[in-house]
């Protein structure tokens, strides 16, 4: 069956949001551990959390006010995970994922839809979530598993047709974006003087690995102690490990190739930009990256991912813009309510 543009778009975003939600959980959970490892959670804990806010600091938990007291770790954690007003919090991502899944409810399996819905309901009671402070780790784990199950069911219960390729494309593009952002948040560790790792830095780099769910795989691959450049190499350039940026872009490329192999002529631009980005990651070494400037390199990777996403939208999802559509639909729905049979 041919694929509706609207369905393709929702498939893509459904899995992007699920992937993003998983990434948020990993980072928040790992940072909580890092904070405990630092020994004095009250004094310095927040230092671990501030970088996670990234550009959202402006409108983050302090509301951008310079006079406001520095946020407590608890506030940052709430903002990242449970704040419904933060559009990229965990709960918001899961809500967006569910909205997308509702739109394509007839195109995904019931099992998959129910799992999305279950994950949403799990996060749906903010009071209960606050009670969980005590055992937050177990809760994060449950939610993470629930989200991973969505992806598992997507692979196991949905035919691997064109619609599924959009799910796959969304997942891997988002993962490449998340991992490169994670590295960017920590690249000051690498560039601030000595590359040799002190004890503290080792803990931090281990945390970076954990945040990408990659600590064990790293140890197995290198079987040596955590070295910043090796971590970078592993997460950025490893060809086999599914959390690495290179691997993710390769998988996204495969998905896009099989989509555009069968579709319209307009699919050229996204294929070209993703192809170039992927080639760049494939043919570079970690030394070249450091020489080029890590921060700049990662920034350009993220920019390129954003371009790919934009071009996908123009090539596959929207031939023509439809401004104000949501509002009109909501209004019409109200009028129709009175006529519901």
């Amino acid at each position: 069956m041919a694929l509706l543009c609207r369905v393709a778009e929702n498939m893509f975003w459904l899995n992007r949001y699920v992937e993003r939600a998983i990434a948020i959980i990993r980072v928040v959970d790992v940072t909580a551990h890092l904070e405990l490892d630092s020994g004095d959670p009250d004094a310095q804990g927040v230092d671990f959390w501030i970088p996670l806010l990234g550009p959202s600091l402006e409108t983050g938990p302090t509301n951008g006010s310079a006079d406001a007291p520095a946020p407590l770790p608890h506030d940052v954690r709430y903002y990242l995970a449970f704040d419904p007003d933060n559009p990229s919090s965990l709960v918001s991502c899961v809500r967006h994922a569910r909205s997308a899944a509702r739109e394509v409810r007839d195109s995904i399996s019931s099992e998959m839809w129910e799992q999305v819905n279950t994950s949403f309901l799990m996060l749906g009671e903010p009071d209960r979530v606050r009670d969980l402070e005590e055992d937050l780790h177990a809760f994060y784990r449950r939610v993470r598993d629930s989200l991973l199950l969505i992806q598992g069911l997507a692979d196991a219960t949905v035919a691997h047709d064109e619609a599924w390729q959009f799910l796959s494309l969304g997942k891997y593009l988002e993962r490449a974006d998340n991992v490169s952002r994670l590295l960017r948040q920590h690249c000051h560790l690498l560039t601030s003087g000595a590359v040799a790792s002190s004890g503290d830095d080792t803990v931090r780099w281990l945390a970076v690995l954990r945040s990408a769910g990659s600590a064990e795989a790293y140890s197995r691959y290198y079987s040596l102690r955590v070295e910043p450049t090796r971590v970078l190499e592993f997460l950025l350039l490893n060809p086999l490990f599914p959390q690495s940026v290179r691997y993710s872009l390769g998988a996204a490329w495969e998905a896009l190739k099989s989509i555009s192999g069968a579709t319209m002529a307009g699919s050229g631009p996204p294929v070209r930009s993703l192809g170039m980005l992927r080639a760049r990651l494939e043919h570079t070494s970690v030394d070249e990256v450091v020489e080029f400037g890590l921060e700049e390199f990662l920034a350009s990777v993220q920019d390129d991912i954003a371009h790919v996403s934009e071009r996908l939208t123009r090539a596959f999802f929207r031939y023509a813009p439809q401004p104000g559509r949501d509002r009109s639909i909501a209004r019409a729905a109200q009028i129709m309510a009175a006529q519901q049979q």
Partner: protein
Amino acid sequence: MTTTASRPGVFAYEPGEFWDEMFVSAGEVRPYYASLAQALSTLSHAEVERRQRAADLSFQARGITFAVNQGPEGVEKIMPFDLVPRIITAEEWRKIERGLEQRVRALNLFLDDIYHDGAILRQNVVPPELVLGSRGYCREVRGIEVPLGVYTHIVGSDLVRDESGEFYVLEDNLRTPSGVSYVVENRRVLKRVWSHIFHGYDVRPVEGYAQDLLDVLRAVAPQEAEDEPNVVLLTPGVYNSAYFEHAFLAKGMGIQMVEGSDLFVDDGMVFMRTTRGPQRVHVIYRRVDDDFLDPLAFRNDSMLGIPGLLASYRMGRVTLANAPGAGVADDKAIYAYVPSFITYYLGEEPILPTIRTYLPSEPDELQFILEHIGELVVKSVNESGGYGMLVGPHSTRAEQDKFRELVRANPRGYIAQPTLALSRHPCWVDDHFEGRHVDLRPFVLFGREVKVTPGGLTRVAMRPGSLVVNSSQGGGGKDTWVLADAST
């Protein structure tokens, strides 16, 4: 407490002066309910609670919900589900089935007539001004030959029972009747949470609905589609209160669910926008009201519709189910004339009776309505879902005065009927049974033949004493068992 505790809860039930679906009198169940009553009486309160919770969770987790306040901030609710099924015997069902088939055939002949030469209007069997002045009458579709002469491919008629146990047709829903997903889902959930109460009953399955519907939709495809018609379901989108049902049906039929913006008309043909370019659409099962179908023909502010759709429809290059303009026949004033349609077109006596209906457009009847408004149910002819109605005996003086004014000001806009003593069915409330008023909405499919799905949605007015069963007004549902011949 001690007296009731010593007796099984199921028998400590007071049927009251209504027709009770389960009990003949206090302590005595109808024969076909005996096995069910037996199963119920052995259950502890805790066990019923547990199953009720399991059922609620199942609806919640599977997202079987309807939206209460439409729009982006709308709240999704599950329809309250009562565990005790409603049973209809094979004999009762045969009459319902025959009665509905007769009614649906007559209604389609009526529609075909009034959109062509209008013989019934010229012979004054029904006042022409009533038909032509109805809000549901659609001049834009006059003279169109619809495939197989079918206008109402899907009908959901509401039936009620009075004190004597007789089934009456309360109204017909001929535009976009909803609720069939609950017929199927209530059964699935009940099987899941309480499989052993099915023991001893031969209940006719309802699973086949979606496939039957697909057969109907394929049968009415335009000729040029040949054997490969592309059938789609048009939904108003996620904000619509019946969105779950749209997805449910699209999935059950394996067809694409589309929104208005997914479709466009080019060169008289309808296409959907796909990642592989435009793809032709032949049949649209539309769950969007007439007014919103085509902004060029109807409401020009509709963003749900497809510009040019009606032109394509007039050319016979796309089939719409149900046909635009079918709504004229479920106008509540025209309802009063359906028995005469049956006689006029089929030469038969109506099998299912209708409710005596007073039309304020007739001076005598207006007078009667104004004098007896406290005993009558007054309804707006164009609204449904339990909106715009007055239940006389349950109303205040002020509400009655307001409706007198409304009726006087717009006699064509209202009808009145006697307040029915709707039948009741025991429902589980806290730790015991209480009687609640119920109705029945069977679903009728009409393509090459008429097919009534053996089951239906039993809607329950959950508030004690209430006669309003609509889900938008807090009504709930029950699984509805139609027994196969052998088990009665």
